[in-house]
């Protein structure tokens, strides 16, 4: 069964066309991440699914029901907001229970579901605190708890980690992944952070300017990007795009090589001078200015003695190179 189906969804704000013909299916139990630069429409798409915005055209189906005109609370969704959006005047327990009370659930059911969610998220000792008395990570867990108690068909996360610091972000990421495994619920997650996308997603949807650029598993997108935008968006450090530095690439074509696929070699095809070295312990990143004036990032595993100013030659395997035409689309017949 499909958890969500979007068919030809368009959204206009006045005359601005924000979402352009979005078609997408999310299977039951799937974790789908919408990723893209800011302003690409990913949050708007999530809000259309949630029902906080109406689609200008097209249909939104959740479970078996077309929900275009159904209010958010009746869509069987639960949303976690970037700012957590907790009710400041209510305790943790009441924050989680308010939606159920509003539905008219009996008190015992509310109590039971809230305490189950609190236990799952380690919030039991904070039950009577108010949001102002909680740390960012705890607030985030309350917001997640508020969505769990509703027992939704579809979870929606709107950049839930962007207000957390780096260490907490990692932990919460793991917690969300575990939550997905425990609940085996369908989840849609919006982020602009490609690491979150790669680590959490069953499938990634890359959006740009209101259009779906590519849909696939993280490794499909990484190994087989449909165009230069997707290739550059995923992977860190991001892919090198060279027009002149590699001999034999025809005019107008660009060759893309991921930093980790480059290696130092005496007889390498690319030559240049090292302008910067980042030593991360496990990895060493080199910035190389090629003889043709382009900048290449090289990711070497382990530690490397190369110094700034060294002249190096770089080599890569033919299989690891991607070619893009002037329209920035991927072309598959390798250049001469």
């Amino acid at each position, binding site marked *: 069964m499909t958890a969500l189906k979007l068919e030809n969804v368009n959204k206009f704000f006045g005359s601005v066309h924000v979402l352009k013909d979005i078609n997408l299916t999310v299977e039951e139990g799937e974790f789908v991440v919408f990723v893209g630069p800011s302003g690409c429409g990913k949050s708007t798409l999530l809000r259309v699914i*949630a*029902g*906080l915005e109406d689609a200008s055209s097209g249909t939104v189906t959740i479970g078996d029901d077309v929900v275009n005109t159904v*209010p*958010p*609370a*009746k869509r069987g*969704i*639960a*949303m976690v*907001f*970037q*700012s957590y*959006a*907790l*009710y*400041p*005047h209510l305790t943790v327990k009441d924050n989680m229970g*308010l*939606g159920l009370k*509003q*539905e008219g659930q009996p008190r015992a059911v509310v109590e039971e579901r809230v305490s189950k969610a609190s236990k799952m998220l380690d919030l039991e000792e904070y039950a009577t605190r*108010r949001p*102002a008395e909680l740390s960012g990570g705890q607030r985030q867990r309350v917001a997640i708890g*508020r969505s769990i108690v*509703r027992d939704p068909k579809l979870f929606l996360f709107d950049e839930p980690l962007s207000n957390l610091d780096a260490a907490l972000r990692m932990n919460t990421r793991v917690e969300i992944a575990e939550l997905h495994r425990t609940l085996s619920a369908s989840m849609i997650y919006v982020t602009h952070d490609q690491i979150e996308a790669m680590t959490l997603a069953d499938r990634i949807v890359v959006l740009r300017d209101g259009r779906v650029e590519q849909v696939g598993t993280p490794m499909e997108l990484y190994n087989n990007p449909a165009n230069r935008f997707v290739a550059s968006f995923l992977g860190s450090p991001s892919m090198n795009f060279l027009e002149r530095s590699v001999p034999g690439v025809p005019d107008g074509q660009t060759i893309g090589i991921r930093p980790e696929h480059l290696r130092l070699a005496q007889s390498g095809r690319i030559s240049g001078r090292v302008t910067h070295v980042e030593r991360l312990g496990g990895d060493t990143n080199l910035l190389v200015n090629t003889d043709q004036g382009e900048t290449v990032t090289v990711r070497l595993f382990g530690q490397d003695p190369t110094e700034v100013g060294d002249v190096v030659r770089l080599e890569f395997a033919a299989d690891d190179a991607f070619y893009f035409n002037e329209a920035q689309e991927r072309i598959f017949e390798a250049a001469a």
Partner: protein
Amino acid sequence: MAAPSKQKTRWHIAVFLAPAVLVYTAVMIYPLFNTLRLSLYSEIDQERIWVGLQNFRTLFGDAIWSDQFWNALANNGWFFLIHMLVQNPIGIALAAILSSPRLRFSAFYRSAIFIPTILSFVIVGFAWKLILSPIWGIAPGMLDAIGLKFLYQPWLGKEEYALTTLSLVSVWQYVGIPMMLIYAALLSIPDEILEAGECDGITGMAAFWKIKLPLILPSIGIISVLTFVANFNAFDLIYAAQGALAGPDFSTDILGTFMYRTFFGFQLQLGDPHMGSAIASAMFGIILIGVCIYLFGIQRRLRNYQF
């Protein structure tokens, strides 16, 4: 070493504070304390003499004075009650309606409702006197037009209605202030909280009662105390509509008009600055007590929310 640098860094504080302190002292602090001082004197044979608390003994002990004082205080209490029960709830309701994003022309309504607040009390008092007049007023005619003429009473002229009528006129004039304050408080509630409520099924009236109202309680508290202070200092509307005698038969007399009559004199009553000051001091005490009850009893229990 330290001493000269200290001098250098300190004197400018006094310079920058001076203008505000001087102006505030001249128009607020000095008159306040002088009024309190004046209430402890009396004039006998054209000479000012110290009488201690004698003026207050007269005010609360002498039947002629104390009847007037308690009448004015009770009227003032009713005046305040009407504002709390009518003005503030209507102000909150108007703000809630105005803050709805679907309302068209909301800027127009906002201005229209706020305009009476900036009108002079003389215009308001006089205009309402004309509107409600049984002789030239348009109120009887308008009620007649919708078949409700039997409801008409000369409201400003009857002892049992006059104070309530004037309170409602004052409500009409000042309802824009709570509306604006609450409107601003409502706008400061982040959209995401209301959207989270929408996802929880809390929309419309439920959103107002369960989310918005608890979050604007601190503003409602501020409005209540502002209303209290303004009402117990009120004078102008009653004076403009009913004169300093606050007729009919003192039924609209409030502390402000009572104090004015006593201090400056009116018609056959001679002015007595010392008794007037005693009344003014009593008003100050009443307002001080009221504000203290609010600050220490109520405001501490209200939470301010940071979004």
